[in-house]
């Protein structure tokens, strides 16, 4: 630790401090303001839970939250299943173009989201899909796959082939081997992948904004729309709630990953 040569450069500590302040100070302020009893975003007027109550009483917010949950759950389940199948299908496969296939699966991670958003919208319109919750789910399943795929693939690659051979040696056919050995050993990767997929879906704004029809607003869309009326403590409260959910999911996924090492 202490023999890191970077430590000896003057200003390293200051730079690191500045980095953390810029990154986290706004988040801390946002959370603090969600408990501010006044409507001002600059003046502290006292502590209150009222804004959380307001949030939970607002039917528009509840509808958006429900949409987010529906989209998140369905796209997580579907993308995780597809990612698991892809990882197992590509495991130890040695064919020409295998690298290409792997790259294509991970491609959505590097393609600018706005490009995907426009392309997806044009595609949906051109095949005559009516924009709504269905199109949002479809789009989310697709862009969540790489997030689910990477941890599952990593887990599978770290699993010695001997376990599967031992199962086959002990009279388990392919399906029994998958059910009784491969899947249980892969499970932490699957859970981690699903968590990542869920928070990615929960958080997505750009693609959702393009392909959501009327009535299909998710929480990020609602927040963006309500900002036109200025930053309200209400928005701070929803954002804080989303932050809590995200942190929860990431922690659980990290914990599962560590525990099964």
């Amino acid at each position, binding site marked *: 630790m202490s023999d890191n040569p970077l430590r000896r450069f003057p200003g390293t500590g200051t730079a690191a401090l500045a980095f953390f302040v810029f990154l986290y100070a706004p988040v801390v302020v946002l959370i603090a303001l969600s408990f501010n009893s006044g409507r001002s975003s600059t003046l502290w007027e006292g502590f209150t839970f009222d804004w959380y109550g307001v949030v939970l009483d607002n039917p528009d917010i509840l509808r958006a939250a429900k949409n987010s949950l529906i989209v998140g759950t369905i796209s997580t389940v579907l993308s995780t299943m597809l990612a698991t199948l892809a990882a197992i299908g590509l495991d130890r496969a040695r064919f020409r173009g295998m690298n290409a296939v792997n790259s294509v699966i991970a491609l959505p991670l590097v393609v600018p989201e706005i490009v995907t958003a426009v392309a997806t919208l044009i595609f949906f319109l051109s095949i005559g899909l009516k924009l709504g919750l269905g199109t949002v789910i479809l789009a989310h399943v697709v862009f969540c796959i790489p997030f689910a795929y990477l941890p599952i693939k990593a887990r599978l690659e770290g699993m010695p082939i001997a*376990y599967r*051979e031992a199962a086959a*040696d*002990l009279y*388990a056919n392919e399906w029994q081997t998958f059910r009784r050995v491969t899947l249980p050993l892969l499970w932490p990767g699957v859970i981690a992948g699903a968590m990542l997929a869920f928070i990615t879906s929960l958080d997505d704004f750009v693609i959702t904004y393009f392909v959501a029809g009327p009535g299909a607003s998710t929480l990020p869309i609602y927040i963006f729309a309500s900002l036109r009326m200025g930053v309200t403590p209400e928005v701070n409260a929803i954002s804080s709630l989303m932050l809590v959910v995200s942190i929860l999911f990431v922690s659980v996924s990290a914990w599962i990953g560590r525990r099964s090492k």
Partner: protein
Amino acid sequence: MGEGVGSCIPAIEARSVVKSFPGGAVALDHVSIDIRPNEFFTLLGPSGCGKTTLLRLIAGFEQPTAGEIYLDGERIEHLPPFRRPINTVFQSYALFPHMTVGQNIAFGLEMQGIAKAEIARRVAEMLALVKLEGFEGRKADQMSGGQQQRVALARALANKPKVLLLDEPLSALDLKLRKEMQFELKRLQTETGITFVFVTHDQEEALTMSDRIAVMSAGRVLQVGAPRDIYENPEHRFVADFIGETDFLDAMVEASDDAGVRYRLSSGAFIDGPPQDFNAGASVALSTRPERLHLGDAAGDGLAGTIDAVVYFGTDTTFHVALDGGAGSIRVREQNIAGKPFPFDRGDRVTIQMPRAAVRAFRDFKG
């Protein structure tokens, strides 16, 4: 090991088996072996000679590139591993980490659809067989290497396979435990009567445990035989070199007939050996084993040389002797007798007595 045993149907037969891997590596080059029912059969050879590959072909994890494999006279190459009544003890043990010891042992039985009560009975029987009663509820990673080894054995034996394959199962254990497990394995094989195919690169392990040994080198089986056979009558220079201690001397065949062969060393000295199929003038590698030779004083009969080094081993002492005329260097081993030091030391002039039967020659090429 009478004639009758050899004539029955082999438990495992490999016929001209070839295995090449993509990229060109030929791991097995026309391997043919017969493994008899109920025998402890060992594949012995240096690392990379194809032992694991042959085992994996028998287990069904790999397909032969050419050739046939038979189990009790039936071809099995086309069968997946789970259709072969053969079980494997993996080098890494490969115990399922998400299952207990009991669940590991029960796994194969469950997959075969055996009734619950019978499974419970067999698991208990196996735990007793490998002396792990009371460990049923433990996870694999809560056990020592030696215990995991026993669980792996129990898991494989629980299925009463026709053949048990063991890939260097003892190589991860320390010396004392390894000796113990060698004894255990031999006991299990005798008690269960199951055919064992055992892989090792350790010649001593092979000699002490096996009914028969196949010595492999570079994807080929060089010689198959009982330990004594392999040790005393190696058919290849490689086999002589790999098993036991052997010294080689370059020599020419001076004369050869039904009575024996006379060899001439590069120094001009002669050595007589038993009859072998050589023509006069052939260039050969002469082999001797240290424990078959004896030292005499300089006036004695035999090859003359000078002692280069003396290595004390407790039960015996090995003398390294440089032969006169630069003919080479060979080792001679003498038993130590309590309280009586050997009368030779470094730098002493000696002669080596070489009984005819201790001399064996190979055509002079490697392998």
